[in-house]
């Protein structure tokens, strides 16, 4: 009976409607307070206090704290808003105030003792920042700011969804464009749009006018889309008419993709080319890991083989062997990478699971260390590397296809071809036997699958894709050094496959965009972007363990665990019971 009595407090939400659930309010406040202090002490708040999101209105450092207040209050208010809006607002204000109080505490503590010997960022600048309000000054500022932000967040929470959703999206758009305004402005300055760019975007952050435009446009668009529901309408159309709408849309997207580097300039082209290279790598690992279930943490080895093959065969500088063109070298890069897949695969055929991860990790490290070693230095150039790898297309530097733009197109074309191959492989007999091995190696063998051959093919084809990626990357960079071969690359590729959704081809693209593309755009935030990369990885894995765009199979699998629980217990009897049942 006691267990029943405890239940309501154990389940947040159950008793929330008629209690204030102070425990949860306090819990969220404390977490948010710690996050706020953390943001201050790692330096995000003071370092970006001068980096505008909206010029002369809001700086990134302060915004980080305001977002913390707001998000905490929003979360805490969700329990309360069902009971009453007013109560949610009060709770929001309390949560914001408590969170702010942590910062007040930090300021007071910092005045009493010198924190700076431990926390470099606990500087007078930080304290000045935290105590300098618009109306008020002093340690009370964070509490007041927190309470106001918290209350506002809870007010938004209580609005009907027709207003709330556009509002939240509008605020998110402000954050997004505020972060990327500078990057968007630079390429626009050389186009007829230069006046628009100057009007809306500062060199960092939005202008006040730009912010207003972004906010109004995003709120308006969201509201209209929510009202008219174009997607449902299109889906409701008969197939022929639907094709008439979807077809041109697809062509439009394709045109945008093709025109993208011309409109956005070389920096974005370079970023997307890098993303496409990681898409190739991801599709390779998607075969070994996603389909065949063979965890390969030494994937960088194949990338290295592809890159060095191209370098050796094409380089016009020292160590170059043949002076070939890029395109003659690419097939050999792929071939050698496949050969290395075979060399890797043979000794580890019998290894399974965790041990496989360690063994492949070792293989990757061997290649990495070999590339930088004195032994291979006369051939591969060691840390000095191989220079002067020709660009795939030999055009003068002023030509529109020079530089990263051509790599963008080449990488994109290869990614499309490889995606097609991967997709065909997936639904082939070979693809099915890979999945059978992933599910149960012994039984797959019992079904007539040749384990040796099938596993080796998985390593070889995965390696081939990665070798191709290495070859293109060598063409993109124009050189290869021992230091470009990093364990980090293997881990990044594994993360892309897992975050995107194992075995899913669109998932690889999304994973590469998010895990490779976004960090490139966030270069201005130097080391902090790695911090957020890690946080983002954790959040994604907690919220969507199946990945962002899971394949049909994985989605079914997660569906599984829920349905399995529904299997009546009567069908899961123990041996003991069964033997008793069979007795006379």
């Amino acid at each position, binding site marked *: 009976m006691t267990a029943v009595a405890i239940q309501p407090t154990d389940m947040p939400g159950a008793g929330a409607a008629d209690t204030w659930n102070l425990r949860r309010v306090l819990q969220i406040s404390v977490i948010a307070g710690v996050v706020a202090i953390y943001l201050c002490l790692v330096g995000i708040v003071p370092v970006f206090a001068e980096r505008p999101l909206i010029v002369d209105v809001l700086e990134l450092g302060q915004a980080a704290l305001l977002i913390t207040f707001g998000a905490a209050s929003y979360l805490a208010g969700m329990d309360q808003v069902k009971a009453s809006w007013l109560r949610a607002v009060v709770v929001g204000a309390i949560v914001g105030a408590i969170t702010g109080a942590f910062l007040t505490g930090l300021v007071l503590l910092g005045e009493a003792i010198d924190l700076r010997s431990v926390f470099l960022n606990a500087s007078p600048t930080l304290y000045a920042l935290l105590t300098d309000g618009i109306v008020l000054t002093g340690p009370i500022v964070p509490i007041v700011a927190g309470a106001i932000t918290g209350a506002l967040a809870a007010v938004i929470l209580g609005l009907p969804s027709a207003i709330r959703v556009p509002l939240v999206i509008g605020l998110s758009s402000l954050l997004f464009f505020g972060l990327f305004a500078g990057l968007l402005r630079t390429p626009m300055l050389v186009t007829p749009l230069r006046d628009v760019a100057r009007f809306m975007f500062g060199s960092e952050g939005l202008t006040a006018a730009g912010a207003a435009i972004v906010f109004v446009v995003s709120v308006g668009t969201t509201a209209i889309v929510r009202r008219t529901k174009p997607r449902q309408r299109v889906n409701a159309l008969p197939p022929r008419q639907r094709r008439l709408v979807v077809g041109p849309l697809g062509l439009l997207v394709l045109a945008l993709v093709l025109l993208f580097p011309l409109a956005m300039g070389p920096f974005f082209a370079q970023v997307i080319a890098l993303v496409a290279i990681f898409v190739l790598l991801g599709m390779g690992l998607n075969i070994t890991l996603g389909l065949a279930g063979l965890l390969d943490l030494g994937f960088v080895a194949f990338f290295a083989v592809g890159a060095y093959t191209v370098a050796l065969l094409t380089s016009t500088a020292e160590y170059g062997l043949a002076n070939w063109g890029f395109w003659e070298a690419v097939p050999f890069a792929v071939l050698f990478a496949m050969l290395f897949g075979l060399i890797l695969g043979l000794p580890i055929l019998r290894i399974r699971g965790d041990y496989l991860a360690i063994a492949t990790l070792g293989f990757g490290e061997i290649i990495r260390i070999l590339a930088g070693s004195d032994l291979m230095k006369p051939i591969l150039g060691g840390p000095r590397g191989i220079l002067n790898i020709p660009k795939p297309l030999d055009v003068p530097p002023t030509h529109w296809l020079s530089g990263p733009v051509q790599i963008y197109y080449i990488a994109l074309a290869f990614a499309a071809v490889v995606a097609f191959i991967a997709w065909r492989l997936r639904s082939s*007999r070979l693809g*099915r*036997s890979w*999945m*059978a091995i*992933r*599910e*149960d190696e*012994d*039984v*797959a*063998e*019992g*079904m*007539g*699958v*040749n*384990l040796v051959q099938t596993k080796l093919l998985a390593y070889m084809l995965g390696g081939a894709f990665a070798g191709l990626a290495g070859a293109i990357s060598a063409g993109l960079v124009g050189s290869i050094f021992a230091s470009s071969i990093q364990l980090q690359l293997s881990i990044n590729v594994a993360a892309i496959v897992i975050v995107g959704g194992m075995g899913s081809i669109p998932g690889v693209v999304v994973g590469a965009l998010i895990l490779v593309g976004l960090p490139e755009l966030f270069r201005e935030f130097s080391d902090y972007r790695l911090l957020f990369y890690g946080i983002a990885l954790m959040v994604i894995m907690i919220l969507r363990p199946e990945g962002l765009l899971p394949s049909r*199979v*994985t989605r*079914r*699998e997660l*569906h*599984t665990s829920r*349905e*399995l629980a529904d*299997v*009546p217990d*009567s*069908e*899961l*009897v*123990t*041996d003991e019971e*069964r*033997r008793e*049942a*069979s*007795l*006379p």
Partner: protein
Amino acid sequence: MTQPVLSVVDVNTFYGSIHALRGISLEVHQGEVVALIGGNGAGKSTTLNSISGLVRPRTGQIMLDGEDLATYQAHQIMAKGIVQVPEGRRIFARLTVTENLKMGAFVVKDKALVLQRIESAFDRFPRLKQREHQVAGTLSGGEQQMLAIGRALMSDPKVLLLDEPSMGLAPVLVDQIFETIGQLHEQGTTILLVEQNARKALEIADRGYVIETGTIVLAERAADLRDNEMVQKAYLGID
């Protein structure tokens, strides 16, 4: 007497230094259901695994239609016509029912034939037809066993090895599975059945072997084994 489809001659199998099978010999003839009964750890599953090639006997012969299988690997033995339904079913949990069946016909190259056999598997187990596109892991225990048997039949094996098909199933499902085995028998499938449920196994089988600590101790017609005092005492729970 005609030549047996499957014959096991004086097989010794080791796990490291453990002598699991000590000179096992048995025969299965065309169309027969042969039961192999024995206690835990007697060597029943090891016998099946030795036949299907999952473990390698150290000495002795395993012959299919008179051909020695010693040089073949497990996947080749399967293609020769010996298919095992493993203990604990071990269906491919994340593949659909249809995909599981297709895997069962992995060695069958003729696509039309595969589709035809999928249809006949659905005829045999209508429950599977209803769950055609469902992931196999979501099936109930009984359905999974049906799928495992259906999958094994996809390559139209010469000999079907069934390892503990009734394990972990509720009594009503046990009856169902044995009914299925009975039907297979009537249709002429040759079956070597390993079971802890000796009563049921001997009811359905033509002949039976009793295995104890890696040795065959009794080999008789199933009906005779049912009447055997020692078998009654040890395996049928009759004092």
